[in-house]
């Protein structure tokens, strides 16, 4: 069996259930550990910023949620492609499971940003390119979830949402650049990047990486859990259908 065969074998629902069942406690544990340590460290044991005061500490929620919000969409895009190309049901269900998590993360990033923005920028909301693109990203999530809910046939819903996800991704990127073109930014540059000369100072940086890992693990755990639920729902439906078919008329 080649390596790619071995990887694709995990798309079998039975194997996926076994693997995800084994991973899930570790993902929850890692999320709880990293978020617990990272958030307490960040909130209680880092100094106040000399200009921003203690409001700087919202960074430990704001940056990771924003990071997950964008990458959840990428994960949905990948899962949609896998579904369209290889027709693995688990993939379509994982994309469906990720969407509400991504929406919540987007809203959380917007909300924490607004809470921080009031004392710092003097306003909850500004039509800054980053804020605008995040609001548009939230709309894309809402449309995607609504289409899943509206189509009755599960396979057609998976197909249609996958096509929407592909087209939507192109337009989400276009909107991002359109928003940049449209208005000047108020938002600061990236807080963390590997190639930047200047990042957030070390004292803030270390707990931030912990919370990033924590939110990442939380995302993995939530998506796996929700995918498992979806698979169980499918199994229940097929069991019911079989019971109806076998029942004496």
């Amino acid at each position, binding site marked *: 069996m080649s390596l790619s065969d071995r990887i694709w074998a995990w798309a079998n629902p039975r194997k996926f259930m076994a693997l995800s069942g084994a991973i899930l406690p570790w993902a929850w544990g890692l999320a709880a550990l990293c978020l617990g340590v990272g958030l307490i460290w960040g909130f209680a044991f880092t100094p106040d910023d000399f200009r921003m005061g203690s409001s700087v500490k919202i960074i430990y929620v704001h940056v990771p949620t924003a990071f997950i919000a964008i990458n959840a969409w990428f994960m949905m895009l990948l899962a949609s492609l896998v579904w369209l190309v290889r027709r693995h049901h688990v993939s379509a269900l994982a994309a469906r499971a990720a969407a509400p998590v991504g929406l919540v993360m987007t809203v959380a990033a917007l909300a924490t940003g607004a809470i921080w923005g009031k004392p710092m920028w003097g306003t909850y909301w500004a039509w800054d390119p980053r804020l605008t693109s995040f609001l*548009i990203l939230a709309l894309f999530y809402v449309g995607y979830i*609504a289409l899943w809910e509206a189509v009755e046939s599960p396979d057609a819903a998976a197909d249609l949402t996958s*096509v929407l996800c592909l087209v*939507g991704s192109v337009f989400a990127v276009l909107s991002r650049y359109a928003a940049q073109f449209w208005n000047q930014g108020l938002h600061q540059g990236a807080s963390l990047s590997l190639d930047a000369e200047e990042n957030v100072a070390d004292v803030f940086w270390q707990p931030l990486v912990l919370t990033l890992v924590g939110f990442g693990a939380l995302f993995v755990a939530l998506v796996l859990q929700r995918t498992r639920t979806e698979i169980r729902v499918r199994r229940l439906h097929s069991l019911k259908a079989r019971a109806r078919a076998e029942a004496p008329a």
Partner: protein
Amino acid sequence: MLTLLHRDLRLALRAGGGFGQALGFYLIVATLVPLGVGPDRATLAPTAPGILWLGALLACLLSLDRVFALDREDGTLDGLVPAPLPLEAAATAKAAAHWLTTALPLVVVAPGLGLLLSLPAQAMPWLAAALLAGTPALSWIGTFGAALTVGLKRGSLLLSLLVLPLYVPTLVFGADAVRRAAQGLDPAQPLLLTAAISLGCVALLPFATAAALRINLR
């Protein structure tokens, strides 16, 4: 493909209803906005490009659920799938018919409505140009959205939810071109970007539209 286009155009012209409604809607939007925000020239003129673009966007949107719905009801759509004409071409014809019957009249009347909203005179030709460059994107994106929701019983609200976020880039660039022209700046750059989005949509979206139709008609 031309036959299909011709058929759709004749249906729109003769069967009544469809053709003038989008125009009427556009006119009403342009009338209601000054009633809402006040007749002051100083507030109307800067908002006019945005209002005219939003009105065109909504007029296009509201006529979308007709693109495939009637053909689905009378079975024409089911006949198109096994037809020798590729479904992509049929999707293109549908979008083109929507553009010719809904969007093109909007482009023609837009300068007149610009007058109502006291848009500066030097921006008038650019308003028509920007709408001409941007409305194909609206029609082709809208046809894609209509194809996604064609199987649904009450799809029109969902259709807006799906299509409006996709309209964002076109609206941003299109309205910006008119705004720049109104302020006496050079509108060429956003205008070209608007046209680029339209051309990209016309070239690529029929494939997505046809894919969605095939799924819905399975």
